[in-house]
């Protein structure tokens, strides 16, 4: 049973499609133009440095998500496993490496380009996981491309000025390495400009997500997983700011007119952990049919940072990169979740136990049990994966979700 026809689509999505096309075509052109340089960077990595130094920036994790969403990861991962990368390690990494080894990419179908742009530089931060280091080094070794990384302190409770200074120092050193390697000079005024643009887009993204606080919620987590593309891929650009201004206007109108992403919204749930990209559409339809809105998520909020105050741009970048949820300790994460439950008036929390992404899975150290006991918040853990559909059982998961909503119904009585 599907009720997709009744859904009122977000109109900005059409514009998003055009933006994405332009973005990837431009990257493709950059990779073929000897006068331009392409850098690959991890999401929430130090991409503002790269943009300010004139690199065109490509984010491979997006490619991993796209491979998952196109449901081809499980066909490509065996190639990476054959090359020695465990099937139980990050499926973004294994599907991306598999895709390179197989010489295929969903970017060809989507945008008519051969694949990811060829990099001149590979830059990572392990603020979200260590796998990116090995992922980037695969390409570094294979193609002889310089790899530069930052390994910030992780699992932090309080983020101290010492933590920020350490990461900021590492960023400064990376700038110097890039300057030396590519005979460039950082323009720090330009870096401030890029950081200001980046933080403005990020703040607008936060406001977009906040439209789900309304009853009915103007958007869902599944909408967010699509519309977050510019805040990841186009950070530091006016394009991202313009897009979110327009999206925010549309969603604010929805709130004013009482239009919900799900008509007759009955329950509001929270999604913790990674999206299950190959099943996003099916899951969105399941929640739609159950008239339950996934109103907020840890994932989408990972790109909503505090706005840049005009001080040291490296300090803002350093703080943003280590303050994010995934880089914090369990107690801090629990406090964040409690705040989100209050802000979005959540009835129940769903934790995605992603088989190949332990770092972005928060159900493995008693969190669902603690929030149930301490916050009286019903919780459900579903097994799956961000990209590898072989770790997901549709029948089992859909039954689990339906039963969870039945549990919420019982609480309501």
């Amino acid at each position, binding site marked *: 049973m599907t009720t997709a026809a009744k859904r009122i689509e977000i109109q900005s999505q059409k514009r998003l499609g055009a933006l994405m096309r332009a973005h990837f075509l431009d990257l493709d052109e950059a990779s073929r133009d000897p006068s331009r340089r392409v850098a690959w960077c991890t999401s929430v990595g130090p991409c503002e440095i790269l943009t300010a130094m004139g690199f065109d920036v490509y984010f491979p994790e997006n490619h991993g998500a796209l491979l998952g969403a196109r449901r081809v990861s499980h066909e490509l991962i065996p190639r990476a496993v054959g090359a020695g990368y465990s099937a139980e390690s990050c499926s973004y990494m294994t599907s991306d490496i598999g895709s390179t080894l197989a010489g295929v990419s969903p970017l060809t179908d989507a945008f008519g380009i051969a694949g990811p742009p060829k990099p001149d530089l590979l830059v990572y931060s392990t603020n979200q996981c260590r796998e990116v280091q090995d992922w980037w080094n695969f390409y570094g070794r294979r193609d002889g491309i310089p790899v530069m990384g930052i390994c910030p302190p992780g699992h932090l409770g309080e983020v101290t000025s010492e933590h920020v200074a350490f990461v900021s120092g590492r960023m400064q050193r990376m700038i110097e390495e890039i300057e030396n390697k590519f005979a460039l000079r950082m323009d720090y005024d330009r870096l401030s400009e890029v950081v200001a643009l980046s933080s403005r887009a990020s703040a607008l993204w936060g406001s977009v997500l906040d439209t789900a606080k309304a009853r009915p919620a103007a958007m869902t987590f599944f909408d967010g997983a699509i519309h977050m593309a510019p805040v990841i891929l186009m950070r530091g650009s006016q394009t991202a700011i313009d897009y979110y201004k327009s999206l925010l206007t549309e969603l604010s109108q929805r709130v004013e007119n009482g239009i919900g992403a799900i008509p007759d919204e009955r329950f509001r749930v929270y999604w913790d952990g990674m999206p299950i990209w190959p099943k996003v559409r099916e899951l969105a339809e399941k929640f739609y049919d159950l008239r339950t809105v996934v109103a907020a998520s840890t994932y989408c909020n990972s790109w909503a940072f505090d706005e840049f105050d005009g001080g040291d741009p490296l300090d803002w970048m350093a703080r943003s990169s280590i303050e994010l949820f995934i880089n914090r300790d369990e107690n801090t994460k629990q406090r964040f979740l409690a705040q989100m439950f209050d802000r979005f008036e959540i009835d129940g929390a769903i934790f995605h136990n992603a088989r190949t992404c332990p770092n972005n899975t928060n159900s493995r150290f008693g969190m669902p049990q603690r929030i149930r006991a301490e916050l009286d918040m019903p919780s459900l853990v579903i097994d799956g994966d961000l990209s590898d559909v072989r770790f997901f059982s549709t*029948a*089992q998961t859909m*039954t689990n979700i*339906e*039963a969870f909503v*039945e*549990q919420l119904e*019982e609480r309501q009585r």
Partner: protein
Amino acid sequence: MSSPLYVGVDVGSSATKCIIIDKSATLVGHHVISSGFDYAEASEDVVRRALLQAEGEVEDVAACISTGYGREHVKIANKHVTEITCHARGARESYPEVRNIVDIGGQDTKVIRLSDTGRMVDYRMNAKCAAGTGTFLESTAHKLGLTIAELDDLAMSSKEQAVVNSYCTVFAGTEVIERIKSGQPREDISMGLFRSIATRVSEMIADPEGATALTGGVATHCRALLRALEEVLEVEIFLPPMPQHAGAYGAALLALKLQLAEKGADTPC
């Protein structure tokens, strides 16, 4: 038309079960058949046979709720409800004091936790893996050239424990071969398999307080499972009169409730 009938149909991965009750919630018909390849056909067949026992006709069905993995294939159903809610409802009817319900089916194992007022407060399902399910037993028994009933008989005559540790069904099979090679009695190895399931179940129980009931198809056929669970969990476990039908029974009770609610009457369930 004779008295109204309330039907619960549980279309599981292995078996399709039907329970029919009357307006006083008295059992008047039941049946179980293999689910096979066609869930719609299986559900029609099982309802027809249960109606024969109930001496009723399809026209007498006042309300029907379907449950189980094939719940959406039951044409006669007024509503679908998950087997988690239905097993909880069925077990609670048999044992009002029950707090933990362990349902071991062909495809999955669930542990459902009820509050002291009978409200479902939590549930857990096994991970995407056959270990701890009926399929685990079927697969291992098949490898040993036994039926599940024969495996159960052997296990019930076990004197000592043989440990099967593996989480994975395939690895458990390998472990069984190792036990055979080391000369351990087949009775003890058989009981080790049931204890392996019981150990998996124990990992899913968050709060052991209160009475525990066992439902599902495996409970119907395997006395050794009940024994293994009681030994591992160290509690007495209630077995409903028709454990395989607990989900269908719960669905029938919910069908009665649904119909009474639509009429605005007080609901006894």
